[in-house]
């Protein structure tokens, strides 16, 4: 079971990475980031059971909190940027380059 869960986490991480790299909509890109963090949580949970200790589960809670904090700031920044440039499409943000 442990091995299968690791595979699940790897696949989720990879799906998150693909979403992060290919989607133009910034909201979906941010969701992909959440997917990647969740993939790590799966590893924490699986390993926590095998080790027979609750530390990994406590780690999950902390990771969730980090994800929440990041999501809040990211969405606020996205709103601010949207107000200025009028688009949420990632590849149209090209004021900074070179």
């Amino acid at each position, binding site marked *: 079971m442990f091995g299968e869960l690791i595979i699940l986490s790897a696949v989720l991480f990879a799906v998150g990475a693909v979403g992060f790299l290919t989607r133009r909509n910034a909201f979906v890109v941010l969701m992909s980031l959440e997917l990647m963090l969740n*993939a*790590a949580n799966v590893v924490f949970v699986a*390993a926590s059971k095998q080790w027979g200790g609750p*530390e990994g589960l406590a780690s999950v809670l902390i990771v969730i909190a*980090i994800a929440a904090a990041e999501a809040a700031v*990211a969405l606020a920044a996205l709103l601010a940027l949207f107000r200025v440039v009028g688009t949420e499409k990632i590849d149209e943000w090209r004021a900074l380059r070179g």
Partner: protein
Amino acid sequence: MKALVLPVAAGVFFLIAVMLSPLFTGRRWWVALVYLFAAAGVLAVMGLTRPLAGSHVAALRLVDDALARIAFIVAVAVAGFTGLVVADYRRANPHASGEATALVLASVTGALIAAMAGDFLLLIVGIELASLPVYVLTGILRNRPRPAEGAMKYILLGGFATGVMVYGSALIYAAAGSTSMIAAVNALHTGASKHILIAGLALFATGLAFKASLAPFHMWTPDVYEGAPTPYTAFMSAVIKFVAFAGIIRLFAFFAFVTELKHIIIALAVISMVWGNFAALVQDNVKRMLAYSSVAHAGYILVPLATGHKEGVVAALFYLVLYALMSAGAFGLISYNEGEEGKGVTFEDLTALGVKKPLIGLCGVILFFALAGVPPTGGFMAKFYAFKAAVDGGLWWLALVGIFTSMVGAYYYLKVIVFMYMKKREGTGSTGNAKVLTVAGVLLLSLFVLAYGVDPKSLLDVVKVAAEGALQLLY
């Protein structure tokens, strides 16, 4: 419990600043005073606790050693400097400076936590607390396109790096049964799950490499450095890099067991030095140039670390402290010349600055010669120790790459000075109003950079203790 004194002190001052700062937003001097008050208070608390040689691991997975203290002092000092520069900067660029003060101090708190972390998850939390306010500070001029875009890019890529780091720490947990560094070392000794642990460490180091702007994880750097308001660029270029490298130095203790990781470090160092220096050659915007130079300097700092010796750690720490001073000072100087956000930051805009403002000109000469690594500045000493450590560790060719690329780098640093002393055409930067606080801050940093070049031993003795402590933790 003694290990808690520092974070608690930092937290208390953070909270005080949060509560007080909106009261003082109206006046320029108050902003600077809040920063200085916080800095002085934290440093005073630090003075009350005995300075530590060696390394003390508390039950709370906190490490109180000289490395943590140096990181904290640098972070506090740079924050104070930022306060001075911001106080002048916000006249032409009004922004929520009360909140900004709170955010800077929160970032300093995060830097301390990260530097004291004896646990991978705690290290992530600390770095996150150091970075999150910087994301916001980048975009704090939120109705201008470049800062807003820079913030968003920083958040997206920073989130990606956090994801990789968290995944790495999850693998470490799976292999070691705990995220504490001690447990990880013990697991390395027993060796059953060594490669998983190494993979976890490597992923973790990748995230740190992102924060330290090491190529190829550096690509956010120029965009974010250019987009962010210049005083906050000064802050992040010094503090975030310092924290990331403090983390790398903590991880460094593992390399004693895993010497093969050396190759990854060498590769990162070479790519960073080459990419950073060559890309900086063709920039017109000084902030972007300094961003690429920041990448190159990250490479130089990695050079001595690749040896795996204690001397390497000493040299890297020495370099790191000086880089924090030089870089913050250089961005402060750009901020001096900047009017409204983004106006006055190209090479052309610096024309005749040194002629018109001799004191700033002198600072510029010191800082940019230091960045270029020309004696008698501290930048030369930093490069000297770094490359010497590499040669002593048998990596003479890596030192040669460093020397050659720093020759390339000398070109664009000198370009700044040449423009600063060129007459005739008028600079477009707004130097009309006197920016007394900025000048004072930049001058102070320049003098430190110069003093450490003339007398490097005073700093070297300190970082030696720090390096010993950091390595002692896990052996």
